[in-house]
């Protein structure tokens, strides 16, 4: 009855079991009391007047008229007093259950030994078969189903794309399926709930995840939120596939320098992983097309990452995709991950480098050897401390004495040198050589002088970072020292993760992961911010973004690259020269002046040269005519040619005359030649390698350990596919409720109006019928 009345009064109430308490209250109770107090004398006054003015009416009609008028006045008094009702409710909400189904390439692997059924097929069939479970979940929860691989996609799993043929190969060529970003997908799915209560998350996967952020990080962050009072959803992970690891040999990666010089002995470091073939011997072969460049025999060891070093001599110029192939041992069923492609571009360029260093610090000692081994670099090394020991700084050790002298080099590398070796005049000459002649400048910080001894001098103006004039420590050493328990961690920026200096792998994500795993630093230069227009490639800080560690910018025609640490030797950890040498080799070539990039030359370039399907490449083409004048056409056409692929791309004009650029997003793996014809009619081309990411199929087993750990991290559990019937029970928990208190006016409604109208009509009706005035 109460709820009927409340609803009749226009008060919004939910189910009766949600209302905990009702209170009838008045906004202005004084008006009510005054009204009630005056009601009796008013009724007496009205009755007296009615008796006097309407003596001809029967007493019952007169009494009714009095009642109408008194009721009318009382109703007005009540409205004036502002009656309202206070509703205390406890609102229950239907919680969300998120279902994430892995649809990445690794889910196309056989679900069971000796079975043609893929993991994805097994999952779909099981999910379709368990209709009762799904119906129960849909009845009790707001069920949200998603598929995920490189990102998250909405999907009803039982209405997902039709099963692919059982013998279909893994969808490696599919840019979306090439990665499985569980962490990212989980983050997106949780974000899409928009604060709604989440009862649970169910993850169907083979546990081979390759994207960022790490799923464990996402779960940890979410768990921290949940522990701050929010209800903790149940995380249920469901492995899809065989319990036993499948016997497999996998080539994990092949690290080779991206650019080499003809005549170089090129080393390719190959990493393999094996399961189930312990003690067997295989051949690991390096091929260039059909020709074998090197081959080694490897005795397989189960459960261990094994490394093999292959080498060859680069004897011709040009880019090539070298294939590293591990011969399949007898009985290996899945061989898609036995090969990998490494991209190597051989040129006959030699970069002329002038390297000035103060003393033989560790980075120098490794670089010294590296530069001497690098046939693509012709380096002149000048060590200030040696000159000082011989007391020969007076002649500056044969350093250039004018701008022309500096311009003879393609790159000048400055270590921890002092202004005694590089006085202001020399700095001015160097600055002029950089800005007007395009000489590259690479500056590496040091504790003794660089950059704090140059603050306020011409060299400082060349740097992409703002330096502080400090010799911070009592020992007179510059820079910022990390606290022993809080060292600096290098974080690559978006620009850095695909920068030529840092490029090791085919994807930005893998590059970032690889570089951010490098050892921590305990010192960096006192450069806390970048200058306007500079690009920060890496930062240093304990957590998240910090001061610029590595940055670059253009000064006139030249490029200046800043390295704010003196400890890049730490990148030798475990692998020796492979990261250290690669960074420096690529950084030197990137920063150095390139004559083939002169304003009167045509050239074409693609960045990066190696990428994964779905990545975006930046293509630039500089076109000049026979006289060297820039092309003034509104656009240019770039031709793409690969294995069975031919296409044309329209390039738009860029910032400077004759320069055109376009973005290209290849979806099909292969070695592509990109070519364009300049205004002089000459064709220029470059090569890029599009290779599928390796992570998905590197390990063909179902990673139950990872899935179990993930569930445990969130306080959930791991279920087998056969146990899906327990899902409803696991997700069962008290429905979350939200207490709510509302005040609702109860006079402003049709009932009050009807009462008023009824009393008025009754009064008028009686008077008309009885002939009263």
């Amino acid at each position, binding site marked *: 009855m109460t709820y009927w009345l409340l609803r009749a009064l226009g008060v919004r109430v939910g189910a009766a079991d949600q209302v905990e308490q009702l209170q009838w209250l008045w906004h202005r109770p004084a008006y009510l009391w005054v009204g009630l107090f005056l009601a009796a004398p008013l009724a007496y006054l009205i009755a007296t007047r009615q008796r006097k003015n309407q003596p001809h009416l029967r007493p019952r009609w007169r009494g009714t008229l009095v009642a109408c008028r008194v009721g009318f006045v009382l109703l007005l008094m009540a409205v004036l007093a502002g009656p309202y009702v206070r509703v205390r409710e406890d609102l229950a909400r239907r919680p969300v259950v998120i279902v994430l189904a892995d649809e990445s390439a690794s889910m196309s692997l056989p679900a069971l030994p000796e079975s043609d059924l893929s993991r994805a097929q097994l999952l779909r069939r099981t999910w379709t078969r368990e209709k009762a479970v799904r119906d129960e979940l849909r009845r009790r929860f707001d069920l949200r189903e998603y598929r995920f691989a490189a990102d998250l996609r909405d999907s009803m799993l039982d209405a997902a794309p039709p099963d692919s043929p059982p013998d279909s190969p893994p969808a490696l060529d599919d840019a979306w399926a090439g990665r499985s970003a569980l962490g990212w997908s989980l983050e997106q799915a949780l974000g899409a709930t928009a604060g709604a209560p989440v009862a649970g998350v169910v993850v169907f996967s083979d546990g081979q995840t390759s994207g960022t952020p790490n799923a464990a990080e996402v779960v940890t962050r979410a768990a921290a939120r949940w522990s701050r009072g929010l209800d903790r959803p149940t995380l249920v992970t469901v492995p899809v596939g065989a319990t036993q690891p499948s016997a497999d040999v996998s080539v994990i990666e092949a690290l080779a320098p991206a650019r080499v010089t003809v005549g170089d002995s090129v080393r390719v470091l190959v990493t393999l992983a094996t399961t189930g073939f312990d003690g067997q011997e295989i051949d690991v072969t390096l091929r260039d097309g059909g020709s074998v460049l090197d081959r080694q025999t490897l005795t397989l060891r189960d459960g261990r*990452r094994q490394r093999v070093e292959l080498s060859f001599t680069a004897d011709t110029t040009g880019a090539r995709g070298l294939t590293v192939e591990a011969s399949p041992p007898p009985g290996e069923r899945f061989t898609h991950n036995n090969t990998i492609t490494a991209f190597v571009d051989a040129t006959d360029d030699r970069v002329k480098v002038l390297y000035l260093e103060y003393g033989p610090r*560790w980075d120098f000692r490794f670089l010294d050897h590296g530069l001497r081994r690098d046939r693509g670099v012709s380096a002149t090394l000048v060590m200030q401390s040696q000159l000082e020991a011989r007391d020969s700084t007076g002649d500056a050790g044969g350093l250039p004495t004018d701008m022309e002298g500096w311009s003879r080099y393609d790159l000048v590398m400055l270590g921890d040198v002092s202004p005694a070796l590089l006085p202001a005049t020399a700095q001015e000459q160097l600055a002029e050589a950089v800005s007007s002649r395009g000489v590259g400048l690479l500056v590496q910080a040091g504790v003794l002088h660089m950059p704090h001894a140059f603050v306020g001098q011409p060299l400082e103006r060349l740097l992409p970072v703002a330096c502080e004039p400090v010799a911070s420590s009592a020992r007179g050493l510059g820079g910022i020292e990390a606290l022993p328990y809080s060292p600096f961690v290098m974080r690559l920026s978006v620009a850095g993760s695909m920068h030529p200096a840092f490029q090791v792998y085919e994807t930005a994500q893998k590059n970032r992961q690889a570089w951010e795993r490098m050892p921590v630093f305990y010192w960096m230069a006192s450069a806390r911010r970048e200058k306007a227009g500079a690009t920060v490639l890496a930062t240093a800080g304990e957590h998240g973004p910090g001061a610029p560690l590595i940055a670059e910018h253009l000064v006139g025609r030249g490029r200046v690259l800043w390295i704010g640490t003196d*400890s890049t030797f730490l990148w030798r*950890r*475990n692998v020796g020269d492979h990261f250290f040498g690669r960074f420096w080799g690529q950084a030197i070539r990137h920063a150095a002046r390139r004559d083939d990039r002169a304003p009167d030359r045509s050239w074409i370039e693609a960045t990066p040269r190696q990428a994964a399907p779905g990545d975006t490449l930046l293509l630039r083409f500089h076109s000049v005519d026979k006289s060297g004048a820039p092309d003034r056409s509104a656009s240019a056409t770039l031709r793409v040619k690969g294995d069975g692929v031919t296409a044309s791309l329209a390039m738009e004009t860029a910032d400077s005359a004759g320069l055109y650029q376009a973005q290209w997003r290849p979806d099909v793996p292969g070695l592509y030649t990109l070519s364009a014809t300049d205004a002089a009619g000459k064709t220029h081309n470059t090569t890029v390698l599009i290779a599928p990411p390796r992570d998905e199929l590197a390990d063909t087993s179902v*990673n139950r350990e990872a899935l179990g750990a993930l569930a445990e991290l969130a306080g959930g559990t791991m279920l087998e596919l056969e146990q899906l019937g327990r899902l409803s029970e696991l997700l069962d928990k008290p429905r979350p409720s939200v207490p709510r208190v509302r005040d609702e006016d109860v006079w402003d409604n049709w009932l009050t109006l009807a009462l008023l109208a009824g009393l008025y009509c009754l009064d008028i009706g009686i008077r008309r019928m009885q002939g009263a005035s």
Partner: protein
Amino acid sequence: MRLVGMIVVMLAFSLCGVAQAQDADVEITAVEAALDRGLAYLARGQRPEGYWPSWQGNNHGVNALCLLAFLGRGHQLGRGPYQKVMADAVEAILVTQDDTGLFRSPNPSHGPMYEHALATLAMIEAYGCIPTPQFRARVQRAVDLIVRAQSHAGGWRYQPRPEEADLSVTAVQLIALRAAQNARLSVPQETLDRALAYVRACLNPAGAFDYQPGLPVHQDIAQATGWKFSPAMAAAGTLSLAMLGAFDEPGFAHGVAFMRDVEYRPEMLYFYYTTHYALQAAFQAGGDEWARWSARVRPLLLQRQNEDGSWPGYAEERFNAGELRTYSTAFACVSLNVYLHYLPAYQR
């Protein structure tokens, strides 16, 4: 406990499934963890004067090994958690340098040259952290002494005089000279040429290296072990050739081949000496040799580390300072440092 559990689980997850490239770090992470425990042990054992006690007391051989253990882990002077430990150690060695350039060990063993070479190596590497002119002058004088003390045969012996020579002392001088070259200190080419001649002379027809030309094994050791050829000398000879850049010498291939068949076990005489030299030589050889020796050494050292971070001394226990295992712990750390590839002297 809940936090620890969460971290452990997270680590397990990150190691086993997130990005497989991270898996490759598992072994090196275990090495680094063992090293960190070892360095913490050494830091605790350092005396306020900066030295580490050993069987002789204050011996620069052990002091230098301890300092190299920190440097080889990537710790640098003037920064990081061990800056005071390292600064004190450097000071403790530098103050003992005499007018001849010798880092005179306060408590030497047979003679000062063994300790001097190790101290010179450690000082040259430390000089790379803060390469001041003063430091350069000190290490150059130490190198000059090594050059002056070379025997007529091309090798070195315990005393800083050009008289006798043996391969063991010679090997460590060559490592110091190699470090000096890397640091652009002055090392006469003639010194290196004569040293190469001496190492060649130590190569015996069996493919191993003699302690001294014509004397495969020191008599005392031959009596104690029954060895005809010493694995330690084979490793020292092979590494000496590598330090001289003489990879094409027949002796290098012979030495590597000899080391392949060595019965490697902790109970062997000069276990730590052999471990370090053989692992370094294998690293210099690269390829299969490195794969073979790295797979031998890493699991063994990781398994044998004590709970307090030290390593047992085995047959070299007498070189430790009683309960304080500075010698064996420093040598084990220096050996594990080979996996990190940080020390410039040993770059390939």
